[in-house]
């Protein structure tokens, strides 16, 4: 009898039982390079995917959008006037360069991000542009830091926890003491080992990582670094990602091109998983000028699109047809709220009559860089023509479309919103006065007031506000939502513990790879 396998098995089991981990490396596809050193210095998915393994904030999001402490020991103490938030830090936390996490480092990190010249795009959530304006961030003890606001703003914690802002990740002083930082240095479970421009980024386990005790939940809780090494291979091309996964050269393709889903799903060694995420696929309407100033016409356009047909054709079923501005994944989603603007060809004629529609052409702006956006535009044009609404497709590249969106220079534009675990922040993104921020879509003071209330309200009190918003949205029809998005990943069966989740970006803590 060959006893060798038994011996190896026993040793492996002993290692696992002892809490140790067998050496493992995971290779993940990544659509682009990391574009910034500071947390969310660029808010593209690739940058944030890498950074979420490296940086941690004082607070973060659970999967249901609730705010939870991360580097803070608990949620902060709030002063009676609501202007002062005091965070106590966890003890024994160190940065990847070996320096300890102190209140001084936290204050420096936040003040660095809030300096206007840094160009941190999330500064807008803390500088008084919205309901929150931070007056100061100061160390009030060795492990105690105090945020002082100009006025009470219950939305502070929600904004601080934003994943699209990298949770306001706390940086080591090696970064905040220079104008030209070289690589991210945080407190997260993995640290940057190397980066080859537009080729790969290698992370290694941070041996001195200090995890929380609570079970992992969203971005919160215990982050177990079970892998020795994570290699992000930068592969922009979907066909190359597909080939690499099939050849076993990557273990995970985090956001697959949906045209490959069926084929990959049919393979024995590869799994394809998909979940609803708090994100919406839309057409932005320019409501302040051009043909879509009339709400009746905007409603007609909404009613003219068969969302199920679009989802089946474009997303291969990996999305959920919806006309609601609240994502389907949200606990606050209400099917009835989605009905008010859903596909109804009979209603279109009446709405066009109410709008005195004279056959004016609507320009639909889209791009070919993202095939889904292009196909969305093509299908929308076909549905509008079928409903008797004249339209023309304007195809530009995404880099041109982006400034057009921000300047409001369009009539109707394909646009998808990145997921935020707190869906109130999507509403926050789109609602506001166009006169001061041209990229806002829904210019209605009543809606803005409701959104401000929504963000400040505890989760348990939000449903009634969402209902009011949904009603008002159906009256204004400021945009067209055609689907609630899904995150769809394909991964090798060797990968254990990996979950596709509402936050879309892959999480590699708690993940192992079978050798």
């Amino acid at each position, binding site marked *: 009898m060959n006893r060798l396998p038994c011996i190896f098995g026993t040793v492996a089991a002993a290692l696992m039982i002892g809490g140790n981990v067998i050496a493992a490396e995971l290779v993940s596809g990544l659509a682009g390079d990391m574009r910034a050193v500071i947390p969310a210095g660029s808010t593209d998915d690739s940058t944030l995917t890498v950074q979420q393994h490296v940086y941690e904030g004082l607070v973060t999001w659970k999967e249901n959008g609730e705010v939870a402490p991360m580097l803070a020991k608990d949620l902060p103490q709030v002063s009676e006037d609501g202007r002062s938030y005091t965070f106590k830090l966890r003890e024994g936390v160190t940065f990847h360069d070996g320096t300890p996490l102190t209140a001084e480092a936290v204050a420096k990190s936040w003040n660095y991000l809030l300096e206007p010249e840094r160009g941190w*795009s999330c500064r807008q959530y803390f500088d008084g542009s919205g309901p929150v304006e931070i007056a100061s961030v100061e160390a009030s003890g060795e492990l105690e830091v105090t945020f002082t606001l100009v006025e009470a703003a219950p939305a502070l914690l929600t904004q601080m926890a934003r994943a699209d802002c990298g949770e306001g990740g706390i940086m080591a002083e090696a970064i905040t003491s220079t104008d030209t930082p070289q690589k991210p240095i945080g407190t997260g479970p993995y640290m940057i080992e190397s980066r080859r421009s537009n080729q790969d980024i290698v992370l290694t386990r941070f041996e001195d990582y200090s995890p929380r005790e609570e079970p992992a939940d969203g971005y919160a809780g215990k982050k177990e670094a079970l892998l020795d090494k994570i290699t992000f291979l930068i592969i922009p*091309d979907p066909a190359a990602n597909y080939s690499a996964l099939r050849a076993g050269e990557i273990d995970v393709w985090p956001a697959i091109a949906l045209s490959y889903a069926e084929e990959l799903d049919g393979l024995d060694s590869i799994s394809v998983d998909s979940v609803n995420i708090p994100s919406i696929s839309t057409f932005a309407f320019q409501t302040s000028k051009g043909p879509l100033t009339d709400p009746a016409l905007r409603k007609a356009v909404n009613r003219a699109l068969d969302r199920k047909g679009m989802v089946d054709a474009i997303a291969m079923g990996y999305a959920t047809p919806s006309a609601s501005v609240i994502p389907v994944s949200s606990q606050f989603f209400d099917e009835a709220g989605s009905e008010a603007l859903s596909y109804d060809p009979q209603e279109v004629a009446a709405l066009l009559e109410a709008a005195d529609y004279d056959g004016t052409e609507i320009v639909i702006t889209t791009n070919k860089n993202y095939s889904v956006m292009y196909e969305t535009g093509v299908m929308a044009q076909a549905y509008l023509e079928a409903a008797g609404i004249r339209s023309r497709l304007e195809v530009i590249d995404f880099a041109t479309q982006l400034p057009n969106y921000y300047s409001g220079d369009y009539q109707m534009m394909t646009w998808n919103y990145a997921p935020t675990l707190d869906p109130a922040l999507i509403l926050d993104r789109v609602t506001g006065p166009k006169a001061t921020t041209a990229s806002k879509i829904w210019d209605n003071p009543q809606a803005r007031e409701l959104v401000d209330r929504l963000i400040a309200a505890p989760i348990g009190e939000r449903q009634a506000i969402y209902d009011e918003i949904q009603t008002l949205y159906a009256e204004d029809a400021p945009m067209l939502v055609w689907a609630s998005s899904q995150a769809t990943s394909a991964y090798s069966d060797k990968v254990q513990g990996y979950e596709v989740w509402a936050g879309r970006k892959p999480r590699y803590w708690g993940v192992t790879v079978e050798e």
Partner: protein
Amino acid sequence: MAQFLVKRLLMAIPTLLLVALLVFMLVRLIPGDPALILLGDGADANSVAAINRRLGLDQPLPVQFFIWLGNVFQGDLGNSILTGDPVLALVWDRFQLSATIILLAVGTATLIAVPVGIFAAWRQGSGMDFTLVALATLGLSIPSFWLGLMLLMLFGIQLGWLPVVGYVSFGQDASLAITYLVLPVLTLILIEVGVLTRMVRSSAIEVLRLEYVTHARAKGLSERSVLFRHVLPNSFAPTLTLIGIVLGTLLGGIAVVETVFTLPGLGRLLVESIYSRDYPVVQGCLLMIATGYVVVNLIVDLLYPFFDPRVTLE
């Protein structure tokens, strides 16, 4: 020859200056804002303005141009807007990989195309000629991305002989680097061999009709001697010009192949930089490609007299 070389190098300076100006202006004529692309879709106007200030993009265009040009003369092509990497090192690194692939592919394609083209010309009108021309036409008609993908599927996925994505440099592991280069080089060979074969064949057909070839045959020289001593040297000169053009064109045009095989080459860098409006990198790539053109043309001109005695370097 030295005088010719110096003269040509001096002539290249105004050419490159003009290229620099055109590249600088053209890149900025494309709509789009690099700061907006860097920050992503959550950007606000203040952050965009701050980034533009930091990058010097808020300065008037002439000021930006002369600052950039001044830095270029000092060997500094700036830093990538998106990644912060120094452009000169980035472009040079990528150029080396692209140049390696192109030289290997075009060199091998030439070695195949010359005998095949001459043979086809020698057998003009025969079934073999027809077959070779058909194969050459097929080769140059196949889109490189499709051919690359097919090779990838066959050798990378079905047979598992060669890696599918990524790249390891020769400095890291020479034998592994070769495995990464086989498929992209093969893709280019299959396409370029078609282009060059047709060129060699048509040049050789013209030469075969000339009187000195008839004279050589009348003297009783073997067909092999006629072809390799008289036809080949005289028909190669136009092919040399074409090789020069192909080498220059591929420096930018290799992007498709580099994308399919995820190779970090100059072409892919250029295309990605254009999409992301990474001005310094686009400018660096185009300057490198223009310099490549100048150098390749110079080498072709220097080689020309060896193949065509009528041409001198005076």
